[in-house]
Structure formats: structure tokens, C-alpha cells
């Protein structure tokens, strides 16, 4: 087990190095160049030259890269040109928002996906099954962006049931010790703040959770159908266990393993989907900040955020794999 973790961590280093080279080159290839990004449209050639000298943008690329990497290794991700604050601070300030949104989206996906898949499997070939299969097909094919717009238009703009932007009603004054707004409200006993944060999460979480929901429903359905016909289920029935007992203990229990693997794999989807969802709902997490950075040519943020997201993604996947190893002996790699 320990060896598995160590090996995976060792693998992470070349991956991140490769990614950092790609990121560095991509950012340098963006139109306008770093100096123009800093000085704006009206920059004079002399001013651009001054900035290039000052910040070393005129040095050879390899030298610039090594300097940047050296800074990274010391934990210095540079400073956002847009806000003048350290990239790392900007990341941690927004990370809780994205985690909160992803968790709620995951709850939506699991909470609806599993029952849906299970129902479909139990009524294989009937109307319910067709409806569920069609729904999950739709869920996978519909672009997150479009769905987010649709939800916003219908439930926020037309019906006015939910807010269309942000994490909290702007008129509300609440304290945020942890930056997880729902939790903050519970900790500080500002119940209405907690509720308000939850209400703000509903639409973005639905938009973000739809694809994982569809995938989880499909895997659950396939897995339950698979298990239903397994020998040990027949054996259990033959032993005279009650149908209800067979359903809940034997079938569900065994069908859930591949499903839990799938759930682990959704984390990456949630992180990438967050960029689009957060942008549509002006939800101030790392995804929106990253999208804004593209727009503002905020080089340090682009490089730093994508690297940090990659690290988070890799660590979450590692954690997921390790926990499976603990749950199911069969998944342990030799």
C-alpha cells in the first residue's frame, strides 16, 4: 500500500514538470505578450521595452523557464497582475467555493443517479427503463454551458425562484471563518446566511452535477443488471432469504463497487466543469477566476492555477485509489 502511494507520487513529478513546460510555452504564445498585458492597449513601445527589461521578458525562454521553476519550488507562484496579490493566496481564497460547489454537485449526482440507475435496472426493458436511459443519454450530451444557461433562464430569470449569480445575497452581512459559506452559517449560527448560501448553490450544482449524474445512473444500471444474474444472488434466493433482503444486501452491496469507482472518476469532470458553470453563474470560485485570468491575460494566475488544479486533481485521484484498495482487495495492484 505504502509502495503504491510512493510510486504514484513519484510519477506525479514528471507529469507536473511536463505540464509546467507546456503551460509556460502556451502563456508566452498568447497574443500581445506579457508586457502588453501589463501595460494595456495604450502602451508606448518605450514603455513595453522598459517592462521587458525590468521583468526579464527579453531573456531567452529557457532561462525564463528555469527562473520561474526555481520560484515555484520555493512555493512562490508569483503575483496576479490583475489584483497585485500572491497567486497562492488568490487560489486558497477561492478554493473553498469550488469545493463546496463540487460537493453539492456530487451529492446531487449520487443522490439522484444511483436511485435512477437502480430503478431502471429493476424494470429493465420497460417504460421506466427507457425513460431513465434516455434521460442519462441527454444528460451526457447536453453541454454544461447550455444547461447552465437554461437553468438560469428558467428558474432565476423567468420564475425568480433562485438567484442567478454569486454565493450569497449581496445585501446580507455574514462572517466567513472557513470560507465554506454553508458551514460558516452553521458555525456562527447565522442560519439564514447558511440557507442563503445553499439556495445560491442549487442551480450551479444542478448544472455541474448533470453529467456525473448521467454517468453514475448508467453504471449503476449496468452493474445492477449484471449482479442480478450472478450465481451468488441465485444462491441467496435459493437459501430462502427474503426478496427485500436479497435486493438491499446482496444485489446493491455488490453492485456498488464499480459505481464507487465511477464516483471517484467524476472529480476531474467537476473541476473542469466548474470553469464553465462558475462563469455562467458568476460564482466566485477558482474556475471563474481562471476564466477571468484568460480574459485579462493574467499570466501568473493562468500558470499557477492550472498547475495547482493539476496537483489537487492528482492527489484526489490518488486518495480515491487508496481508499478502494482498502475497500476492495481485488483492486490492489500487485
Amino acid at each position: 500500500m505504502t509502495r503504491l502511494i510512493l510510486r504514484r507520487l513519484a510519477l506525479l513529478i514528471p507529469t507536473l514538470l511536463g505540464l509546467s513546460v507546456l503551460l509556460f510555452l502556451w502563456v508566452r504564445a498568447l497574443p500581445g505578450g506579457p508586457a502588453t498585458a501589463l501595460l494595456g492597449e495604450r502602451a508606448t513601445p518605450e514603455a513595453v521595452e522598459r517592462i521587458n527589461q525590468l521583468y526579464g521578458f527579453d531573456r531567452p525562454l529557457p532561462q525564463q523557464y528555469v527562473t520561474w521553476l526555481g520560484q515555484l519550488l520555493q512555493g512562490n507562484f508569483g503575483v496576479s497582475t490583475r489584483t497585485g496579490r500572491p497567486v497562492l493566496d488568490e487560489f486558497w481564497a477561492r478554493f473553498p467555493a469550488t469545493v463546496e460547489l463540487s460537493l453539492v454537485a456530487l451529492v446531487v449526482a449520487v443522490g439522484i443517479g444511483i436511485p435512477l440507475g437502480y430503478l431502471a435496472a429493476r424494470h429493465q426493458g420497460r417504460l421506466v427503463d427507457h425513460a431513465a436511459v434516455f434521460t442519462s443519454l441527454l444528460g451526457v450530451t447536453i453541454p454544461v454551458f447550455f444547461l447552465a444557461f437554461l437553468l438560469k433562464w428558467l428558474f432565476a430569470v423567468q420564475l425568480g425562484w433562485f438567484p442567478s449569480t454569486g454565493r450569497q445575497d449581496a445585501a446580507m452581512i455574514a462572517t466567513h471563518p472557513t470560507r465554506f459559506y454553508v458551514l460558516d452559517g452553521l458555525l456562527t449560527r447565522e442560519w439564514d446566511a447558511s440557507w442563503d448560501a445553499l439556495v445560491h448553490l442549487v442551480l450551479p450544482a444542478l448544472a455541474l452535477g448533470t453529467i456525473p449524474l448521467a454517468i453514475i445512473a448508467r453504471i449503476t444500471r449496468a452493474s445492477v443488471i449484471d449482479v442480478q444474474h450472478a450465481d451468488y444472488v441465485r444462491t441467496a434466493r435459493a437459501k430462502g432469504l427474503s426478496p427485500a433482503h436479497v435486493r438491499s444486501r446482496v444485489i446493491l452491496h455488490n453492485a456498488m463497487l464499480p459505481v464507487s469507482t465511477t464516483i471517484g472518476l467524476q472529480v476531474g469532470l467537476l473541476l473542469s466543469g466548474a470553469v464553465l458553470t462558475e462563469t455562467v453563474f458568476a460564482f466566485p470560485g477558482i474556475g471563474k477566476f481562471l476564466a477571468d485570468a484568460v480574459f485579462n491575460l493574467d499570466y501568473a494566475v493562468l500558470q499557477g492555477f492550472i498547475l495547482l488544479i493539476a496537483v489537487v486533481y492528482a492527489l484526489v485521484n490518488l486518495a480515491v485509489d487508496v481508499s478502494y484498495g482498502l475497500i476492495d482487495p481485488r483492486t490492489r495492484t500487485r
Partner: protein
Amino acid sequence: MRTRWQIVAGGLVVGLALTACAASDREAGGSTAGGESGAGRDTFIFAASGDPSSLDPAFASDGESFRVARQIFEGLVGVEPGTADPAPLLAESWDVSDDGLEYTFHLKDDVTFQDGTDFDGDAVCFNFDRWNNFTGVLQSESLSYYWQKVNGGFASSDVASLNGTGKYESCEAPDATTAVIHLQSPLPELVSALSLPAFSMQSPTALEKYDADGVTGDGEAPVLPEYATSHPTGTGPYTFESWSPGEEVVLSAYDGYWGEQGQVRRIVFPIISDATARRQALQAGDIDGYDLVGPADVVALEEAGFQIVDREPFNVLYLGMNQANPDLADLKVRQAIAHAIDKEALVAQTLPEGTEVASNFVPPAVAGWNADVATYDYDPDKARALLAEAGKSDLTIDFNYPTNVSRPYMPTPEQVFTAITADLEAVGITVNPVPDPWNPEYLDKIQGGPQHGLHLLGWTGDYNDTYNFIGVFFGGTSNEWGFDNPELFTAINDARYVADVDAQREAYEAANAAILDFLPGVPLAHPVPSLAFKADVHGYPASPVQDEVYNVITLGD
């Protein structure tokens, strides 16, 4: 077994509806700021289209920075409400010497900055000296743009054109309520220019304490100092509370404010960059109002019970005719094009209601606007005749226009392009469309080189000064216009420094007439910028130069 499926589906719907019912309570007021249950609303939520670039207005030149700065800061000079004319603010009055070199400002007494520092003559001089002594990175246009444009230079600079070339000489404070500014040569626009947020009075104590001029860099980017990111300190009715970049800026009432504090005790600027998202946020009840309403949304919002508030236009939209193109270098061709365009129809079809047709390159609200310039009325026959005279009856011309952009002076460039093209084709001109994305391609093409023909562009003015329009366009040779007319350049640049106000106005009127005779482009319109608000927002102080401070707003029925 179908029942279970129905239970799941039904549960979902009920759940959504329940949260929705509870959610709609939030529009009934929710928790009011300050915890006064049952009190009226005192938080004003206005959507910004982007982050401020700097909370220190001396380093800003963009509308979103100024929007925030107007609440926190005040300058020596304000503007008359609803106009662009200078009015007393922190200076109750001023005297200008006959030679135009000495400005004596009589300051308001008993004014304090938000950190408790007294506002007095020394504070005024501190600010002026600070601007004039910017060095290094601080002299880049993206930071101290307005001091450079208005003053013309700095005390010292590595750049020859900025080194000691400014109008400003020195400042003295003979007593607490007087500040005297000495100039090296006249700058008649100074008083008008001082109404810009960039020249706000800032607390000397806070500027020093938070290292306001310490713009540094650590190898990756210039970093704004702490003052400009978290400690802006002025004399205005609202004091800075927090800024979460990409999320919101929050301000709260300054209890030591010298004037009327008003009902609004807290201002939140949620940052919503997408125009459609801003409209939807208003419709969903998330915000009280937003700026730069698209012309297409005005009617729909009004029908849904929202208020539309128009600003008096302080801008101009024009059709540029680049004379680097030999066809356009012919005055007869330019006149033909001007006569071919039906401006009235253009405004009616493509621009917001209330938009005025333009005759000058400055809006009527500006002092140098001239009612008697050549107007080139719509006359297709005359246009054809002029083209025939010039021997250009089969003219083919490139027409550059920007895509996917909406500026206050140009909300719908594609539509304007289409309307003008139809007019030109009607008199026998063949138009070759050249669309480009606004930034950076379009601007680069127009301002960075000679490769363009007809083009659409415009300008929103900063303060009541003709030079601020025509000086920007025609103060010297440029890629955009492609002509060299020393006589015209001189007329415009000389007018800028005429010390006598009446004489200066006449000089500008003459310059405007000369421009329209020479016809480097066709002024098209002064589009009306609109704001939208919830029905219960009253008294929004719409201003042509966006001098809009929220302490005069009332909320609730």
C-alpha cells in the same frame, strides 16, 4: 413498481419547489444590514462589469475604477448635477490670475479624510506634488494616464517627452483653507480636469503609511502597493470595506462625512462581466441596477416594470475616412460619402432611443460645440454628382468595422456598418467589408498602421473640454486619419492654451468649423447610454460624465 419511480420523480419536484418557495422569501428583504429588523433597505447593489484596475484613482483611467472612486473620494472640483460643468466641491471657490498661471483654491473647512486626517491646504499640495513626482513604472500610461494627458509631463523622467515638460510648477498652502497652484504656462482646462476621479484628494497619512507609490515587481508583474489594493482613503461619503477580485467590492457609510449621508449605508458592487448576465441578475432580483444596458434590452426591461435611466450623451460616434487611401484623400469623395449617409435613419434604426444626430466631433454639452458647421445633409443625388466630378463613379472601398463589442458610443457596430453600407451602395460605391474582433486586432489595424479605409470609432469624453475630443482625434498626424494638415493641428493645439475662457470657446468653435470643412470623417451620432434599476430605486444621479455618488439615492416605496 411504477409507483416507486413516481415517488422519486415527485420527490424531486417537491424538493425543488420547496427550496424555491423558501428562496423567494429572500426578495422580501431578507436580513437587513445593521440588523435593524423591519427597517428599510439600506444596501445598494450595483453590478460592475469588471474589477477596478486600482483602488487608488491616481493609477486608474477606466470607468469601473472611477465608479468605485467616486463614492470614496472627492476632488477640489465637482460637476453641476446632470451636466458636465465644473462646480465647487472640496474647493468652495477659486480665483485664476489674469495670466492664467496661478490658481488660488479656497477650501472647505472641517473636512476630514476617512482615517481622521484633516483635509487642508497641505493635503492638497501633497497630492499635486505626488502626481508630479511619479517616477519609473508609475509613469507608464496604464497607471498615471490622466496626469500625463492633462499636465503633459513629470518633474523628471527617463522619457524625454515627459521630462520636466509638465505645466505644473509648484503648490503652496499659505493657510489651512487655501492652496495655490503655480503653472509654468497656461492650462485653461485645469479646473474642468480636476473633476476627474484621477485627481481626487487622498489622505497624505494613508498614502505614506501604505506605501502608495511603492509599485514594485518581483520578476513576474508590477504589483500594486497595499494602498491601491486595500486602503484607499478619501473624504467621500463611503469608506472602503473589502474587495474580492472577480467577486465584489464593498463600501460602507463614512460617519464623519461633511455632507449629507443619505439612506444608502452600504454599497456592494458584484462583478458580473457578461452584459446578458447583468440583465438577468436584475431580473432575478440579485441586484438593484446596472450600467451599459443594451439597446435591445431597454424595451423588454421597461415592460417588465424596471426603470431605464438615460445619461445625457457625452460621446461621439464617427465614420473615419483614412486619407492614406488615395481615393479618400480626395475631398470630393469624402463629401460624397458624407452626403450619401442618411444619419436620421441610421439613428432611428440602429441606436438607442433619445440618441441625437451629430454635426460636430464634440457633443452639444461641450463648450466649444459649434451650431454653424457645415452639415452635409442627406442628398444621394449630390453624392453621385460629386463622385462623377472626382472621376470616381465606380469607387470600391474597404470598410473596417469591429465585431463582438459594445461601447457606450457604439452599442451595435455591425448594425451601423450595415446601414451605412446600404447608403453607400445606393450612390454607386462598392463596399468591401473588413470585420475584425475589437481587441486587439481592430484597434491595432486602425491605430497601428495605414492599412484601412472607412472605419467606425468613437470616444466618450472625460470632462468638459473640447480638446478632450478633437485634440485626441486631430491634435497631430496619426495612422487613424492618415493626413497632414499643419494649419488644422496648430489651430487645435493653440486653442488649448488660450487663457481667456470666452476667447478659448471662440477658438474651439472655429477649430470645429475648420474640421468639418476639411472633413476627415463624418460625425454620426451621440448615442444615449442607459442604466436599468429595480422599480423602487429613486433619485439615481445620472451624469453625462458619470459623476454619480450614491448618497442621494433612496430605496423602497
